[in-house]
């Protein structure tokens, strides 16, 4: 069933996420990372950031929060059984550090149909506690017909 285009422009409440030190390590280990900048405080202290930082796609957690809300939005009523992630585009402005508080705004930027499939795209913009941009992202999902 086609997704109603009237939801283009729908916004979700700002999503606030505090980056946890152990969560960074947990995430890094789950993606098979070995980079000491994510995992080893002692080594990271001597590195460019003075402490561990999050791997780039850790943005899936703080920027992906409101995207999850969109996927489960009852009004939008996406068929989750047939939904897969189609495309992802991250633009990074600053690294995420333990203790950072991220605020992410999310809007549905596009809804379209092609070859019997529906495409839903969300755009997110995340800023940190200093008001500086951290990540801008486009998340495209495909609902297989």
């Amino acid at each position, binding site marked *: 069933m086609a997704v109603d285009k009237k939801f283009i422009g729908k916004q979700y409440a700002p999503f606030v996420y505090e980056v946890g030190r152990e969560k960074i390590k947990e995430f890094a280990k*789950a993606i098979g990372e070995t980079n000491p900048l994510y995992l080893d405080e002692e080594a990271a202290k001597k590195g*460019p950031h003075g402490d561990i930082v999050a791997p*780039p796609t850790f943005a*899936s*957690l703080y920027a*992906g929060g409101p995207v999850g809300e969109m996927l489960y939005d009852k009004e939008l009523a996406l068929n989750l059984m047939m939904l*897969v992630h189609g495309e992802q*585009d991250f*633009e990074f402005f600053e690294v995420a550090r333990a203790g950072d508080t991220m605020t992410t705004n999310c809007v549905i930027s596009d809804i379209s149909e092609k070859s019997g499939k529906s495409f839903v795209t969300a755009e997110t913009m995340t800023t940190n506690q200093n008001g500086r941009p951290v990540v801008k992202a486009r998340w495209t999902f495909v609902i297989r017909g």
Partner: protein
Amino acid sequence: MNFDDIKIGDEITEGKHPVGKYQPHYYAGASLDFNPIHIDPDFGKMVGLGGNILHGLCTLAFAAKTCVDYAGGDPASLKRLKARFSKPVKPLETVIVSGKVVAKDGDTASIEFGAATNKGENQVLTNGIAEFRKI
């Protein structure tokens, strides 16, 4: 690798990422994405995926690691990361990330990358772009 050593036409060091049987479960726990298509083989079969599939963002995390490692290892240098999830990755496959430096100017270098699995010629990530800034 320093930014200044990155040259147009250079192939990046190939990244091999074996996907264990429970990798989707580890990633689900870390990312909080517990969609049953990722963690329940029966559900995956029922919806026509032939079993449970790895999260696209986990495959993208593997690609990010391969590219960042190549570009010197500091994630702060990564400016943009983009890809299309063309085919699903299944447990017990190996994701192989490869790419090439396609553009470079004074402060930005662009890598085009893709990822395939060892089972057949499945291109699982296509249209991949990783841009790095000089830091």
